[in-house]
Each structure stands twice: as structure tokens, then as C-alpha cells.
């Protein structure tokens, strides 16, 4: 978290070495190849490169931090409306002294953004219109006023108009020393606010009723946050542009939201993702002449989001798919083991191997399916295959698992009939599902509750804990005719 402080220390150094801060576009400086441009970027000799990079990274941090609160408060599109609404303020700021003065533009834009937020609030509370309509309305109207003013400004004969159109899509290369100072100030402000008022922001974001009952001034906190977001939007304008600022607020935070359940981690990750996206955008827009920075920053953020979306350890789509597949594979293996147990049990544990045909008949499957299943068991060390895979021998591990699944199943059936008064012919389906997920503790508790009964409702013996732990089929249990180890 102290990274931004380091950057704010770096800035005076950058300022001292800056000679050509107001170069309009990096790409126009030379006509060099992409590789040369990339080299120039990474050697950081060019002051504009340093300015652009420092700027995009700073705003990545600010937007990432504040965006986290925006996303968990479900105000994502408020950021969008705010960012479009600042445009007339930018124009007013420019008109103040007919130049691109960072402070004047900052003040104008912030005021316009807050006016927009107030307009949304007013429309929502004095008409029947819903929030989405109010947001879209304010967004487009303010933007139109801004466009009117910008086209009027462009017609003016006087004034340094260069760069005013860059506010639409952003050009990091146009970031000057003054802009960078402002960005540093806002970043520090945002970090301080988040650190000092972390508890307030957290409580009001997740449970505003509770917060109000604890005596937090939820409205003050809400509008404080809006003010900070307005600041963030305004400093991001130059690099990302009016149209795409909302992405900086939403996308890194949403990516972080997919990866963690803790707010402080989300803030941290979101700030990191914002930085990455900013650096990504600064780099790619540097590669070619006239490439805008904003869209590349957005693509960087979207890339991060897609990675989190697909591969996130907890909520990732592909991760979940793999988990689901491995779970259903496990259940299938356990069901095969159970069938093998049933086959063995039906012949009173005479012989310790089961043929593929017996397994297939028991499971009502084709021989081929049974072969695939038995191979899966062998791969997991639960069984060994003999005679070209036609005979299946359970390993001790396989026996234990098979036995405990059957045990779970039958104990649960008995429990349902005894304790929950289910009819004996209604318990099988439920037991079929729960046998795979019952834990040891629960099984023991059920067993105790059932007073160590050894027959299930259908009269089949329930394997005991010793049976499970033995690791091999018992010598033919009740009929003492065939000894253990005799094979077919």
C-alpha cells in the first residue's frame, strides 16, 4: 500500500528531468518501428514516457481503490454517469483562462460531476422515473451540453486549443507536469481517505441499516465517496477519456471481487489491477502513432477481468467446471466401487475378484463402459486389473472406499426409516446422493444413534468400521465354506 507514496516521492525527480513535457503525442516524435518504440518505452529515457506511465499507474491505484466501493455498493453505473457529466465542466475550466490549465479544469469538472450526481438524485426523488433512466438521462444530457460547448470552443479564433479533444478518448502522452502533480495529490488523498475511514466505508457499503443504527452518518459518507469518485474520474480524464473512465472504476474492482471475499484484499488487488491496466495502456498506445490510451487501458483491465472470470481459484468459470468434473468423476468411481462390493456381497464374498461382465451386468452398462470405469479405478490405485483387464481386484484402498460408501448408504437408509419415519422403499434415492458426501463424524454419530445396528431396512448387513479398516474382503462371513484367498 505504500507504493503510491514512493511514486509521490519520485515525482519531483521526474519534474526536474522533464524538458519536453508538453509534447502533443509520443507517436509523433519519431517514425520508428514497433520494436524500437518498445525499447524506447522500457528504457524510460523519454520524459513523456515517464509522465505517461506514472500518471496511468497513479490513476489506476485511485480508481481501483474507489471502484471497489462502487462495485460492492452496486453503483457501478453512477461512475459512468459521473464521468460523462464532467464534460461541460471541462469546457468551462478551459474557458476560464482559455488554456488547458489542470487546476481550472479539475475544479470545473468536479463541480459538473457533482451537479450531475445531484441531478440524478433529484430526478429519482421527485419523479416516478427509476434510477437507470435518471442516470442515462443525466449522462447524455450533460454530455450533449459538453459537446455543444466543445464545438463552440473549437470555433474560437484565440486560445491554445490543442489537447482539449483528447479528453474524449484520452492520451496519456498529453499528461503534463501539472496534471501529474494533481494526480499524485488525489491519489494520496484517496489512499488516506480509504485508510482513515475504512470502517465507515465498509459498514455503510455492506449494511447501511446497521451503519445507521450504529450512528454513522451514512449520507455524509455516501456523498464523501461520491466526491472522491468525482476526483478520480477527473484525474483519469486525460489518460482514459470521458467515455471510458467508468471502466477504470468498474473492471479492476470487479476482477478483484471475483478473487477474494475480504474487503481489504479486494482493495489491494483492485489497486494492483488498476496499475497493471494503466501500464498496459500506456505501453500499447506508445507503440503506434495516434493510438489513444484509454481504449488500451480498458482492454488491459478487461484482460485481467477475463483471467479472473475464467481461472479465478474460487469463482472462475473454468475452475468451477474442472471442480465439477472431478467431483462427478469421483462420484462415478465411488458408484463403480459400490457395484463391485455388491457383486462380491451377492456371492457372500467368495473369491476376491470381479469379472468385467459381472460388473457390467450389475451396473446395467455395456462391457465397454465397464472397462472404462475399471480403468479409471486402476488409474486411481483403487483396483488392479488382470487377464487383459477382464478381472478386477480391489486394492486395500479400493476396498476401504467401497466399504465405507456402502456403509454410508445403508446407515443413512436405516437412519431415515428409524429416526425420520420414512417408508423403507422411499429411502434409497436419498441415500444414493448423500453417500458421497457424508463425513466420518456424521457417520459415527448416526451409528451411535442407531445403537450399532448391523442390518439396513432391506435386511442387508451394514459393514462395520472394522470391515472398512480391514482393507480386504472378509473371509466368507456367515457361510464358512470357502476360505480366504481361494480364487475362481
Amino acid at each position, binding site marked *: 500500500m505504500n507504493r503510491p507514496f514512493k511514486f509521490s516521492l519520485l515525482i519531483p525527480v521526474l519534474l526536474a528531468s522533464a524538458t519536453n513535457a508538453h509534447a502533443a503525442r509520443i507517436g509523433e516524435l519519431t517514425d520508428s518501428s514497433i520494436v524500437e518504440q518498445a525499447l524506447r518505452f522500457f528504457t524510460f529515457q523519454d520524459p513523456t514516457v515517464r509522465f505517461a506511465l506514472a500518471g496511468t499507474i497513479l490513476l489506476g491505484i485511485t480508481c481501483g481503490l474507489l471502484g471497489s466501493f462502487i*462495485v460492492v455498493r*452496486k*453503483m*457501478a*453505473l453512477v*461512475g*459512468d454517469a459521473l464521468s*460523462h457529466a464532467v464534460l461541460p465542466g471541462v469546457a468551462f475550466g478551459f*474557458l476560464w483562462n482559455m488554456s488547458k490549465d489542470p487546476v481550472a479544469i479539475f475544479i470545473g469538472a468536479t463541480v459538473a460531476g457533482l451537479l450531475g450526481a445531484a441531478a440524478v438524485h433529484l*430526478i429519482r426523488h*421527485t*419523479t*416516478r422515473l*427509476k434510477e*437507470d*433512466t435518471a*442516470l*442515462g*438521462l443525466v*449522462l*447524455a*444530457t450533460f*454530455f*450533449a*451540453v459538453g*459537446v*455543444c*460547448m466543445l*464545438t*463552440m*470552443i473549437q*470555433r*474560437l*479564433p484565440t486560445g491554445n486549443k490543442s489537447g482539449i479533444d483528447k479528453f*474524449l*478518448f484520452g492520451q496519456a502522452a498529453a499528461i503534463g507536469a501539472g496534471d501529474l502533480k494533481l494526480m499524485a495529490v488525489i491519489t494520496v488523498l484517496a489512499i488516506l481517505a480509504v485508510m482513515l475511514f475504512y470502517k465507515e466505508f465498509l459498514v455503510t457499503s455492506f449494511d447501511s441499516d446497521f451503519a445507521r443504527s450504529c450512528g454513522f452518518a451514512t449520507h455524509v459518507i455516501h456523498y464523501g465517496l461520491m466526491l472522491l469518485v468525482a476526483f478520480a474520474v477527473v484525474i483519469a480524464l486525460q489518460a482514459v477519456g470521458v*467515455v*471510458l473512465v467508468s*471502466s477504470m*472504476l*468498474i*473492471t479492476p*474492482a*470487479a476482477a478483484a*471481487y*471475483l478473487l477474494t471475499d475480504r474487503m481489504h484484499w479486494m482493495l489491494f488487488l483492485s489497486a494492483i489491477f488498476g496499475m497493471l491496466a494503466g501500464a498496459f495502456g500506456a505501453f500499447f498506445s506508445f507503440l*503506434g502513432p*495516434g*493510438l*489513444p490510451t*484509454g*481504449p*488500451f487501458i*480498458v*482492454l488491459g483491465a*478487461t484482460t485481467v*477481468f477475463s483471467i479472473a*472470470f475464467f481461472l479465478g481459484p474460487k*469463482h472462475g*468459470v473454468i475452475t468451477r467446471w474442472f471442480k465439477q468434473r472431478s467431483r462427478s468423476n469421483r462420484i462415478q468411481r465411488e458408484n463403480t466401487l459400490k457395484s463391485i462390493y455388491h457383486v462380491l456381497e451377492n456371492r457372500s464374498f467368495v473369491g476376491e475378484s470381479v469379472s468385467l461382465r459381472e460388473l457390467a451386468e450389475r451396473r446395467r452398462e455395456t462391457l465397454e463402459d465397464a472397462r472404462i470405469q475399471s480403468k479409471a479405478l486402476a488409474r486411481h490405485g483403487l483396483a488392479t486389473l488382470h487377464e487383459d483387464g477382464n478381472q478386477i481386484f480391489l486394492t486395500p484402498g479400493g476396498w476401504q472406499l467401497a466399504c465405507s460408501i456402502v456403509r454410508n448408504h445403508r446407515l443413512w437408509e436405516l437412519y431415515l426409516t428409524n429416526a425420520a419415519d420414512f417408508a423403507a422403499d422411499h429411502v434409497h434415492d436419498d441415500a444414493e446422493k448423500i453417500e458421497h458426501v457424508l463425513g466420518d463424524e456424521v457417520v459415527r454419530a448416526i451409528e451411535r444413534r442407531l445403537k450399532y445396528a448391523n442390518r439396513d431396512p432391506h435386511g442387508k448387513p451394514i459393514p462395520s468400521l472394522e470391515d472398512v479398516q480391514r482393507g480386504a474382503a472378509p473371509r466368507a462371513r456367515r457361510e464358512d465354506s470357502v476360505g480366504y484367498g481361494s480364487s475362481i
Partner: protein
Amino acid sequence: MTQLIPAFDFHQVIVAPWSQDAAGTFPIVLMGFLVGAACGLVGTFLILRRMALVGDAISHSVLPGIAIAFLLTNSRGTLPMFIGALAAGIVTTLLIEIIHRKTRVKQDAAIGIAFTSLFAVGVILISLYASKIDLDQECVLYGEIGFIGLEEGITLGGINFSPQLIRMASVTLVVAALILIFYKELLVSSFDPALAFSVGINASVVHYSLMCVLSAVVVSAFESVGAILVIAMLILPGATGSLLSQRLPRVMGLAVLHAAMSSVMGLHLATWLDCSIAASMVVMGAFLFAFAWIFSPSQGIIQRFIRSKPKLDEPPADLPAAEKSAVG
């Protein structure tokens, strides 16, 4: 400031556009009206279904669709542009739904992620292939309604109806016809999804059809008003209408009236201030909205103020809020 705002010359601003420059003025005003009417009719349903911001998203994300269609066909043909925009609209709708359903990201954030990404792709394509795509970045944002009438088309009564104008007119007519034909389905599924389901209306077919119509309207409005101002065209007429009436047919009639008035007033504003015509039309549309907001006879601010004057036997002032939430 005096340089910025020219003096108001009645003749030049109000009379001249309709006397000397009528041939140039009429197509622009007509185009503004057609765009506003088509968007307003679709937008009314968006507002009802609380999907105003999905409209926002689609209006941004048709851009990559158009850019890719340009790149693939190397032409500005109507058909590729429509197909590109339809595809982009459907992709956006799907993306929003996938992000929203498959993860715990809420719908608002999903909308924000989807459209900014697609719009970014569009802007990058345009700036990479600037020579091949006949669109510039500013045009994308606020359109060029002033150039709409320039291309040669059919001349009627001394006024040139350019191909774009004819296309927009047919789109508007098709939208109006579709709404007339499927009025019942739209109405029922917007107000009462459960009832719609029980009478056999497939909500997701209605939803996706509406999104397709929306994409088609947005892409045909794109050239004249750009990606962002079209949001205003979508929302303002319907919002203004619904401040003035509670009956859907009347709201839609008012939306069309709003489109016509803001088009005419916007042209005069742009003539006076010499600024972007499309943006002026939106500004005047917003002015009309503000007018309705303040003076609406049923729910305007003034009316509310008069009604909320405390009477002794009336419950306290926080009742309107409760009523509102009950309605919403």
C-alpha cells in the same frame, strides 16, 4: 465569453433557416425527428423495463460491429452495417447475461464491463485502420447530422431526400409498425412478466427481439447522432412522456412530439450558437424534459409542492416517498 456566444439575431436564427436555407434545413430537421421518434418509441419500452442502461451499453457496443463490418466488406453498405450492429447488440446482451449469471458480479457492473470493453475494441480498430474505415473518433461520439442531406437522392419539391434519410425513415416506419403489431406482447411482458408467461408469451424472445430492434435503430441513428447522444434520444422522449401521462399510448405519442420539437428547437439553437447540431437537439430535448419535470400538471415539481402544503388532517410529509416505493 462574448466571442463564445454570438448575439441573438432573430432573422438569422429563426427566419433564415426556413427561408433561404430551407433545402438544407429540412433534411436535417427531418432526420433529427426520425431518429428521435424511432429511438423514443423503443426507448419508452426500455424505460418501462428498467433497461435504460442496457440501451446505453448497446449504443456504445455497436461501434466494433460497424468497424468490423467495414473492415470485412470494405464498404459502407447498409446491409453489412446492420448485420454487424445486430451481432454486436446480441453479443453485448449475451455478455452482460453471462457475466451476471456465471459470477457474483451484479448486473450494473456487468453492463459497465461489457460495453466499455467492446467500445474500446471499436475505438482501437478505428484508430488502427483509420485509412480504411470512413469514421473518425469525433463522429463516433456526436455524429454528423449536418452532412446527412448532402448525398444525392430522390428530389421531391426542391428538397433532396438523401439515401440516409430514406433509410432512417424506413427504419422508423418499421419500428412503429412492429410496435403496433406486437403492442400487446410488449405491454404485457413489460408490466407483468408473470402474466406474460401464463398467457404463453416467451419473455426471452420478446427480450432479444427488442434488443435486435434496438441495435438496428441505434446503428441507423449512429451516423447522425453518434454513440453517446443516441442514449439521450432513447431516454429523453420516453422520460418526458411518462412525466406527463400514465397511459402508454399517450406516452408514446408525447415521445414522438418531443422528438419533433427538440429537433426543430435544436436546429435553431445550433444556428444561433454555431455548435454541433445533434448535441443541440439533445440539449433542447433536455430543456423540454426539465419543462415537463417542473410544470407537469399531474406530477410536476410545482404541482407536488402545491399538493404537499400541509393540511391538518393529512399524514406527515414522508408519505409520498412511501407511495412512490409502493408504485415502483
